[in-house]
C-alpha cells in the first residue's frame, strides 16, 4: 500500500476551506487531519499533527499565510521534528507571489486560477518525502522578478564558513552536476550529501531546499 499523505488545510474563509476539503477528501491517499483558520494559532499547533503538507491560504485570521509559514519555520526548523511542506494558495498567482512564497519557506503555490486536478497534483507532489526543486520554474521566477545571480553577497560570506565536506558538495552544485551524480563526483555517500545539504540549510537559517536554491543563486554559486 502506497504511503498516505497527511494534509492540513489552513484557510481563513470557512467556505473556501470546505470546498478544498470536499476536493482533497476524494483522494484515497490523502488524510485530512487538520483544519484551521487562525494563522497565529496554527504556528503553535501545526507541529503536533505530524503533517506532510499544509495548504495555506494567504487570507487567514490574525496573520497572513506568508507570515504564518515564516513564523512556523523560524520557530520549529532545526529541530528533530518532521516539518510539513507548505503550499501557499490564494485567488490569483503571480511570479512575485511565487518568489515571496519560496522566500517565506513554502515549496510553491497553487491558486484558484488553477484547475482542481492541479491542486490535487500540487499537494501530492508536496507530500513526497523528498523535496525536489523545479529549477527551470524557479529560474524563470527569479528572472521574471529581476533577481540576479550574485546579487546578495551576504550568502556568499556565510557559505565560506562551511566545513570541507559541504564545500565539496557546494562546488559540485556550482558545477551544475546533477544531484544523483554529486555522490560520485564528491566521493560522499548519498546520505552524506543529503546531510551536507541539510546542514548547509541550517547554517544559512533556511528551512527548505527551495530557499537554499534561491540563496545559492543570489550568492552567485548558481546561475553565473
Amino acid at each position, binding site marked *: 500500500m502506497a504511503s498516505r499523505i497527511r494534509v492540513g488545510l489552513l484557510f481563513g*474563509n470557512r*467556505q*473556501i476551506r*470546505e*470546498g*478544498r*476539503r*470536499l*476536493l482533497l*477528501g*476524494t483522494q484515497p491517499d490523502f488524510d485530512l487531519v487538520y483544519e484551521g483558520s487562525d494563522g497565529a494559532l496554527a504556528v503553535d499547533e501545526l507541529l503536533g499533527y505530524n503533517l506532510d503538507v499544509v495548504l495555506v491560504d494567504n*487570507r487567514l485570521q490574525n496573520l497572513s499565510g506568508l507570515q504564518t509559514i515564516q513564523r512556523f519555520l523560524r520557530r520549529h526548523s532545526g529541530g528533530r521534528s518532521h516539518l510539513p511542506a507548505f503550499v501557499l494558495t490564494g*485567488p490569483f498567482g503571480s511570479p512575485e507571489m511565487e518568489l515571496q512564497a519560496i522566500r517565506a519557506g513554502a515549496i510553491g503555490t497553487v491558486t*484558484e486560477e488553477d*484547475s*482542481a486536478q492541479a*491542486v490535487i497534483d500540487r499537494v501530492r507532489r508536496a507530500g513526497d518525502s523528498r523535496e525536489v526543486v523545479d529549477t527551470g520554474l524557479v529560474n524563470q521566477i527569479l528572472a521574471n522578478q529581476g533577481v540576479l545571480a550574485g546579487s546578495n553577497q551576504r550568502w556568499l560570506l556565510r557559505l565560506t564558513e562551511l566545513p570541507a565536506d559541504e564545500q565539496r558538495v557546494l562546488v559540485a552544485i556550482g558545477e551544475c552536476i546533477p544531484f544523483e551524480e554529486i555522490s560520485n563526483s564528491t566521493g560522499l555517500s548519498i546520505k552524506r550529501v543529503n546531510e551536507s545539504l541539510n546542514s548547509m540549510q541550517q547554517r544559512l537559517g533556511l528551512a527548505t531546499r527551495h530557499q537554499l536554491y534561491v540563496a545559492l543563486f543570489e550568492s552567485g554559486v548558481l546561475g553565473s
Partner: protein
Amino acid sequence: MFRWIQTRKWLPDVFIGAIFALGLGIADYVIQGRNALYASLLFGVSFFFFREYPYIGIGFVLLGGVATVLLAVAPTVAGFGIAFLLLLAAAFGRRVWSLGLLAAAIVSGLVLAHYAAYQTTLSTQFFGISIYNNSGRGWLFTFLSIGIIGVSGFAWLLGGFLMEFLAQRNASKERDIVQRHNLRTMLEMAEQNQRFRIASDINDMVLERVSAMLTLTDGARYAARIDADVAPRTLDRLAELIREAQGEIRRLYDMLNRSVQVAAAPPNLNDLELLAVQLRQDGYNTTVNHQGQRFALIPSAELALYRIVFDAVENVKQHAALGCDIDIDLIWSENGLQVLVKDNGIQAGSPAEGLDDSAESLIRADLESLTQEVDGPGIRGMRERAALFQGSVEAHTVPGIGFTLNAIFPSIDHYRTAS
C-alpha cells in the same frame, strides 16, 4: 483694425476721448477761441487710439502740439489733459509705448513752452503775466518746461504705480481663486481616496465569495462522483454564496456610481477662466473672450474643447517667450463655434534670442507660413478630438507676431444641452 472696430472694443476709448475732446475743448474755446478748439480736438483724438494703437495716439499728441503752434494759440487746457493720457498709458499700456508717449508729451510741451515764451505774435501778456524782456521770457520758458516735465513725469509715475497696484490686487484675487480651486480639488481627492479604499474592501469581499464558489464547485464536482448527496447540499451553499456576492457587487456598483456623480467633474469651458488665471500667474498675459450667444454643450464636447485650448496654450508655453499675450477667443454662431488661440510669442521674442527683422527674414517667414503645414503629435491629437464633434483644427504661424490655432466646429449645436 477691422476686428477692433467689429468687436466694439473702442467704445470705452471713444467715451474717454469724447469727454476730453469736448470738455477740455470747450474750455479752450471759451478761453482762446475756435483755433484752440481745433488743437484740443487733436489731443482728444489721441485718447481714442491710445489703448489699441498707441503709436497713432502718440502721432495725434505731436500733431496737437504742431497745430497749437501753427494756429498760433497759447498752450491749451487739453494739452495739459495729455498728462492724464500719460497716466492711463503708463497704467494700462505697454511700457515701451507709455515711454514713447511720455517723450512725445515732453517734446510737444517744450515746443509749446518755447513758442509761448519767445513767439512775438502772442500778446506780451501771457495769462496775465507781463513779459517785458528776454529775461522774463527765459524765466517763463524755464517755468513752463519744468512744469510740463514735472507734470508729465508725475503722471507717468502715477500710472506705473496704478498698474502695479492693480496687478498686485488682481494677483491676490487670482491667488485666492487658485487656492480655493486647489482646496476643492484636495477635498475631492481625499473623498475619492476614501471611496477607493471602500471599493477595494468591497472588492476583497466579492473576491472571497467568488473564491468560495469556485472551490466549492471544484470540490463538489469531485465529491459527487463518490457521494451523490454532496451535489444538492453544495448547490444550496452556492446559491447562498452567489446571493451574498451579488449583494456585495450591488454595494460596489452603488459606490462607483455615486462616486462618478460626486467626484471632480471634468473641466469644461467655464474652467478656461481658471486656466487663464493660472497662465497669468505663470507670466502670460491671457484673456478669454466669448463672442456671440454662447450655448451649453454636453460635457464630453466641452471637455474636448477645453482640452484643445489647454493643449494649444501648453504649446505656446513651450515655444513662446514668457510675458507674451495669449488670446483665447470663442466665437459662437447660431450653429457653430470657432475657437482661436493666438499668441504674439514671436513679437514678444526672447531678448536673448533677439529678433531677426531683416527684409529677407520677414519674406522667408511669410513664405513659410503660407507653405508649411504645422503638424506633430500635439496637433494630431487636437484634430482627433475635434473630429469627434465634426470639427477641424488648423494651426499656422503669423509672421513676426506669433502662432494661431483655429478650431472650427460648424455643427457644434448638435451637442447642445439644456443645462
